[in-house]
C-alpha cells in the first residue's frame, strides 16, 4: 500500500506505541488516585504536558488534554462565547474544517452572529475584510493555521494583531501544523490553539487545547476536577503519554522531516505535471504545508481518480461532491473561487514520515495513465 493521505490521519510511530504500552497494564492506575501507582500515572501525564507545552512554547498550565482536534475546537469556540454575555459576534473563515464551521453555525441558535472571512484564490484570508468585520461586539476570531485540503498557511501574526487591537480572543485550529511547523504561541500572538495527536504520528483520539493564562472559557463537560476543571473525565493516560512522545519526536525531527518531505512532494508535482496537461495546483504556491499536494484534474471527477488509484494500492483523498454524498464539492475549493466543474476533479496527496521516494515514483508512473483513461471517457476533454 502506498499511503498518501497523511492529512486524514497518520500511522502511529512505533516509538510512540512503545511509550504507551506500559500504561495499559503495568501502569494502568488512575492519575487522580492517592496511592503510589496513581502518582506514577500522574507523573506520566504531567511529563507529557511538559513536552506538549515545549513544542508550542506554552506554559504547562496552559495545556488542556482533549480527545482530539474536534473537541478542542468545540471547547474554544463555545467555551469562550458562553463564558461572557456582552459580545455576540464570532468571526471565522470560509475554509475552516467542519469542526470549527459546524460549531460556529450551532452558535447561531444562541443568538450569535457568525461572519466568515473570505479567502483569495490561493486560500489566504482577506485581512482587509477581517479588519472591517471586527468590532467591540466580537467575542472570538477562530481562523486555522493551515488548511487541511490545500495546505495554505494563514498569516497568523497579522490576524492576532487585529484581534488584540479590539480585545478579541484569537483561536487557531493548528491541527495540520503542530508537529509539522514550528509554533510559538507567545510570539505569534495566539490565545488558544487546537492540536490533534493522530495528525503527527501520535495516537487517534488524543489532542489538546492550549489556552493562555487569563483567557476565560467555560468547560463543555462537567464532572470531576480534571484539567483544572475545564475537561472532566479520567485522563486517557496511554493516549496522553503517546501524544507527549509524538511531541518529543516532532521537536527533534520536524525540521529535517519537513525538508525531506518537501523534496518528495515537489518531485511528485513536477513528475505528474510533466506528463499531464490541464492540472491546477490548489493552495498557495509557497505559503503551503510541505507535505500537501492538492490539485484539480480538469475534465475528470475526483472519485473516479481515487477508485483507480485504490486499485493500484494508492491511498489519496478528494474534495469532490461524489465522495461526500452531497451535490456540492469542497467548500474550501469553492471559497477559493474554483468553478464547480473544476472542483469536482480535485485530488489531494499528502505525504508524511514514512513516505519513500520509490512510492512517489510509482505514483508518477501510474497516475498519468489513470487520468488519460478517464479523459478518454470524458465528454468534457478536448479532442
Amino acid at each position, binding site marked *: 500500500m502506498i499511503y498518501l493521505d497523511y492529512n486524514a490521519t497518520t500511522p502511529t510511530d512505533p516509538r510512540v506505541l512503545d511509550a504507551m504500552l506500559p500504561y495499559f497494564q503495568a501502569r494502568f492506575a488512575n492519575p487522580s488516585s492517592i496511592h503510589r501507582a496513581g502518582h506514577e500515572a500522574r507523573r506520566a501525564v504531567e511529563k507529557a504536558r511538559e513536552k506538549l507545552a515545549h513544542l508550542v512554547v506554552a506554559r504547562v498550565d496552559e495545556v488542556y488534554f482533549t480527545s482530539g482536534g474536534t473537541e478542542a475546537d468545540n471547547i474554544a469556540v463555545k467555551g469562550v462565547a458562553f463564558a461572557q454575555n456582552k459580545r455576540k459576534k464570532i468571526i471565522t473563515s470560509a475554509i475552516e474544517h467542519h469542526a470549527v464551521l459546524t460549531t460556529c453555525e450551532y452558535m447561531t441558535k444562541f443568538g450569535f452572529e457568525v461572519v466568515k472571512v473570505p479567502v483569495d484564490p490561493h486560500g489566504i484570508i482577506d485581512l482587509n475584510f477581517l479588519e472591517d468585520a471586527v468590532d467591540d461586539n466580537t467575542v472570538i476570531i477562530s481562523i486555522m493555521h493551515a488548511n487541511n485540503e490545500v495546505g495554505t498557511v494563514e498569516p497568523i501574526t497579522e490576524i492576532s494583531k487585529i484581534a488584540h487591537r479590539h480585545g478579541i480572543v484569537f483561536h487557531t485550529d493548528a491541527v495540520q501544523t503542530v508537529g509539522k511547523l514550528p509554533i510559538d504561541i507567545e510570539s505569534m500572538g495566539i490565545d488558544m490553539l487546537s492540536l490533534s495527536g493522530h495528525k503527527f504520528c501520535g495516537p487517534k483520539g488524543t489532542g489538546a487545547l492550549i489556552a493562555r493564562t487569563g483567557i476565560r472559557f467555560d468547560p463543555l463537560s462537567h464532572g470531576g476536577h480534571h484539567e483544572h476543571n475545564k475537561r472532566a473525565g479520567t485522563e486517557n493516560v496511554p493516549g496522553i503519554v503517546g501524544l507527549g512522545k509524538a511531541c518529543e519526536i516532532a521537536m527533534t525531527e520536524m525540521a529535517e522531516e519537513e525538508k525531506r518531505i518537501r523534496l518528495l512532494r515537489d518531485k511528485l508535482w513536477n513528475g505528474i505535471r510533466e506528463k499531464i496537461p490541464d492540472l491546477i495546483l490548489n493552495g498557495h504556491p509557497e505559503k503551503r504545508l510541505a507535505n500537501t499536494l492538492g490539485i484539480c484534474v480538469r475534465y475528470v471527477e475526483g472519485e*473516479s481518480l481515487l477508485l483507480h488509484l485504490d486499485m493500484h494500492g494508492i491511498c489519496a483523498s478528494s474534495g469532490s461532491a461524489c465522495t461526500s454524498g452531497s451535490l456540492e464539492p469542497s467548500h474550501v475549493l469553492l471559497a477559493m473561487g474554483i468553478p*464547480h466543474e473544476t472542483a469536482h476533479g480535485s485530488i489531494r496527496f499528502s505525504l508524511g514520515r514514512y513516505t519513500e521516494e520509490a512510492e512517489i515514483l510509482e505514483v508518477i508512473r501510474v497516475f498519468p495513465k489513470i487520468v488519460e483513461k478517464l479523459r478518454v471517457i470524458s465528454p468534457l476533454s478536448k479532442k
Partner: protein
Amino acid sequence: MQYSQKVMEHFLNPRNVGEIEDADGVGTCGNPICGDLMTFYINIEPKTDDLHMARIVDIRFKTFGCGAAIAVASMASEMAGGKTLFEVTELTRQDVADALDGLPPVKMHCSNLGVQAIQEAIKDYLQKIGRPDLAKTIQGCPKKSEHNNQ
C-alpha cells in the same frame, strides 16, 4: 460506501466508450456543475418511426462523473444495445442498478442519468426523422430543478 464487484468491473472496463460521427440520435443528461454529465450516441436500423421495429444497432457514450456514473453508463449501453426503441423506453434506473448488483443509496442521483440520456438520444432521433410529436411522449432528462432536488 462500497461498490459491488459488478460496478467496479464496469467502472474499470467500461463498454461502448466513444462517439459516433453523424449519429442518428445524440442525447445528453446531467450537468458538470453537479459533477455528472453523460452523452449517448445511437444508430438506428431500420430508420422508421415504428418504436417496435426500430432498433439500436450501435451505441456509444462519454461520461464525466463518479465510479457509479461510469458503471451506469456502461451497463445502460449494454442493456440498450440491440433493443427496439420501445423496449428501451421501458428501461428504468432500477433495471440498471439491479443489473449492477445494486448501487449505494447516495449514488441514485447519477444512476438516473444512464437511461435518461439514452432516451434523450431517442427523442433526438425522432425529431430528426420528423416526429417531434412522438419525441414528446418519451421521458428523457428531467428539468434542472428536479435534478437538483434529488
